[in-house]
């Protein structure tokens, strides 16, 4: 009777197990990675070697110590009739198991120190890229070439909110990747505009904090062209999980060509930015297009797409995240004089995370998003602003 019961139970258990396994979404992207990813830079390769070596030492220690313990648990059981031996000291043994671990640690410290010295040497670099963390995007600036731009998450909200199937590089894709040359020593300077972030691409073997008021340094030298992905690694608020890092690594000649191709855009944008004294001139997409009158519908339609950049803080419906991020619906700014509204969008608000968006948005973008904010999100002011007016204020 009880045996029968057991068999039924076992069968039920199997059925539950089968159901659990069936639940697993064994997607095509699954990698089941068990170790650090394959390295793409000498630093990452050295870290991987170090990691594997330490891992093996730890495993050996673990197996030896617990081999002894489990042997004892098996052989010295009371149920086998083992009598306890009442010893409690053995000075020689105690000295041995203090000294041996110490020697093992010294053995680990030597290659670790060598790798660290190698990693910290940022001299003789071929190129310097300055990275600035923002809530929640990255800004890249090529100090040798006068190029600079922002890099935002490009995964659509619909995928995040499960309204659309997720793409292959879900959450690890951006609008403008940082472009780097292969086989060149690249020095990075890292800082932040607001809170602490951390820049990390696992295959490069680098992770450093981006800290306001600090400029941190690190370097890499990527051996093969390709696309490399990583994420912000330091909790930086609400959208910490939504500020990926993507690097497009090109062959050196292609990289040089890319730099050349960036130049005309940069020159054009600096020409329009006569009042802008900042040296970090920005890539302003539509600056070459001559100013024209936009209709309300055009501004509203374009504004809706630009507003995507504001959602992180001010919410898809303009509700904000009080008290840190104020709502736009019915706020003093979005329903007050339009001049104040333009002023805040263009120049930001000091000591808050509201950025001077004139640095990263075109005249059209700014005009459209302001018009959109005043005539949507529960507001209906009926007024609008033209790109030409924004251009005049630059």
């Amino acid at each position: 009777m009880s045996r029968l019961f057991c068999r039924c139970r076992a069968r039920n258990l199997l059925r539950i197990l089968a159901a659990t396994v069936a639940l697993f979404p064994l997607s095509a992207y699954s990698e089941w990675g068990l170790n650090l990813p394959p390295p793409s830079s000498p630093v990452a390769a050295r870290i991987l070697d170090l990691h594997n070596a330490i891992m093996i030492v730890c495993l050996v220690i673990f197996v030896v110590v617990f081999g002894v313990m489990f042997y004892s648990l098996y052989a010295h059981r009371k149920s086998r009739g083992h009598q306890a031996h009442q010893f409690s000291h053995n000075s020689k043994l105690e000295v041995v198991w203090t000294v041996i671990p110490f020697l093992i640690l010294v053995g680990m410290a030597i290659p670790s120190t060598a790798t660290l010295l190698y990693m910290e040497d940022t001299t003789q670099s071929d190129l310097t890229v300055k990275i600035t963390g923002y809530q929640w995007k990255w800004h890249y600036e090529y100090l040798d070439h006068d190029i600079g731009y922002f890099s935002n998450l490009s995964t659509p909200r619909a995928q995040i909110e499960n309204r659309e199937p997720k793409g292959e590089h879900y959450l690890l894709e951006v609008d403008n990747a940082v472009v780097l040359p292969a086989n060149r020593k690249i020095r990075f300077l890292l800082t932040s505009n607001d809170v602490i972030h951390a820049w990390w691409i696992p295959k490069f073997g680098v992770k450093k904090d981006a800290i306001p008021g600090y400029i941190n340094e690190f370097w890499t030298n990527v051996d093969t062209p390709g696309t490399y992905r990583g994420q912000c690694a330091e909790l930086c608020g609400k959208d910490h999980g939504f500020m990926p890092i993507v690097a497009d690594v090109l062959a050196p000649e292609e990289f040089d060509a890319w730099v050349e191709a960036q130049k005309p855009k940069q020159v054009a944008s600096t020409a329009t930015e006569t009042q802008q004294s900042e040296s970090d001139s920005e890539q302003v997409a539509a600056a070459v297009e001559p100013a024209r009158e936009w209709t309300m519908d055009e501004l509203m339609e374009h504004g809706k797409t630009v507003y995507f950049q504001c959602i992180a803080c001010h919410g898809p419906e303009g509700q904000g995240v009080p008290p840190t991020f104020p709502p736009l619906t019915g706020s003093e700014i979005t329903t007050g004089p339009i001049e104040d509204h333009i002023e805040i969008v263009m120049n930001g608000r000091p000591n808050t995370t509201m950025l001077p968006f004139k640095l990263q948005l075109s005249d059209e973008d700014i005009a459209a998003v302001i018009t959109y904010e005043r005539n949507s999100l529960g507001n209906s002011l009926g007024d609008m602003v033209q790109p030409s007016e924004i251009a005049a204020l630059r």
Partner: protein
Amino acid sequence: MSAAHTEAHDHHHHRPSGIMRWLTTTNHKDIGTMYLIFSLTMFFVGGVMALAIRAELFQPGLQVVNPELFNSLTTMHALIMIFGAIMPGFVGFANWLIPMMIGAPDMALPRMNNWSFWILPFAFAMLLGSLFTVGGGPASGWTLYAPLSVQGGVGVDMTILSIHMMGISSVLGAINIIVTIMNMRAPGMDLMKMPLFVWTWLITAFLLIAAMPVLAGAVTMLLTDRHFGTAFFDPAGGGDPVLFQHIFWFFGHPEVYILILPAFGIVSQIVPTFSRKPLFGYDSMVFATAGIAFLSFIVWAHHMFTVGMPLAGELFFMYATMLIAVPTGVKVFNWVATMWRGSITFETPMLFALAVVFLFTIGGLSGLMLAIVPADFQYHDTYFVVAHFHYVLFAGSIMSMMGAAYYWLPKWTGRMYSERLGKTHFWLTTIFFNLTFFPQHFLGLAGMPRRIPDYALEFTEFNVISSIGAFGLGLAQILFVYIVVQAVRGKNEKATAQVWEGADGLEWTVDSPPPYHTFETPPTVK
């Protein structure tokens, strides 16, 4: 002295009954019980938050909570488990056991003892209340790093105030423990004869007194930065965001040992009992504990290798951190040697103690890996770290307390617990714990950062496994409550004074359950 006599003696005190008994009690056993119930309650509150986190991470995409609430949940889960579950849990065991182990009638400062407990429910009510304010609870991680923690609403201020209250409670409790151990030992109970649980708590108490005020300083500076125009951590005003991390971890690393040293003490009580042998290397155990405590003050910056310290700093903190492996190794070797050629049985407390030794060592070894600076650049702020500290804090601290509960419950209640259910609880906990946290090592190595509410598709499989494990782990703890309640209600067989065949120490010389006041006449220790 007979139990009947003690009962008669008790009646002279006219102690109040009902709720007033618990509000006004100065008895170390009552206060110990309240601490333990509080700890268990917070364990479930923090556990429910962990399950909400794991539910959100079951699949990619946002399903259960939004990112703001997710950040609040990770922050609160940590604060509640550390300050609400583990620390009060160990204080509960200390209250019950230290007087009984050193032959004292009570704690040295009974009224302060009452106060240090009753601060806690108010502190945690305020912390939990912050979830319902505009802007939600604290969302900057339990580390409260500035400048992120300068953002956020009144919930952050409530958290700061509640941390102050927890700190006061802990320091008062620590003072009480030191005074009790230094002044109230029975004749003949020399320091080097004290049970190891008492020793580890003595050292922990010193760590608490040294570390908690540092945390109080850090959060006070944060408070003045938030509201009173100071700029300790704001570079725009000449401040330094990294300064916060240095101060925080100067508290934070000793705190890690505050959370684990009493667990070492518990294991050092349980293993000899069920090996029927004295503890191997008592003296070296005491020195190793003191050594770990000392080292805990000079390794703090290994939590922040990626902030960009000077090379000399990185090397110093790497070497100092690696050194901790030596005294920790000595402890593990001593436990194994205690079992060696013993006469071992596997009652539930022993199973938990063995699991602590085995699983804590996994966490210890991954800790050694984290100390290696170049490798740490890959591990830092990933799920590898999450796996590491759950191996030391859940498998180390929490499971040692479960073992301790099974070990001393028969002494406290006078009834045995159900061995069959106890073992079931042990195996469920151990299996689901590993199912939850072992895959997180792989996630971290593959590149999944900590504290993210949503993740790339390549991390899906291990997150699914981890979430299933977490729900199993959570549900298994309901069985624990059932077992404890069953033993407390006295349905099971009676326990003898000795309880365990191999048990040794003063607490096993009094009746089970012990009289309300024990050792009013001090015993003599030979």
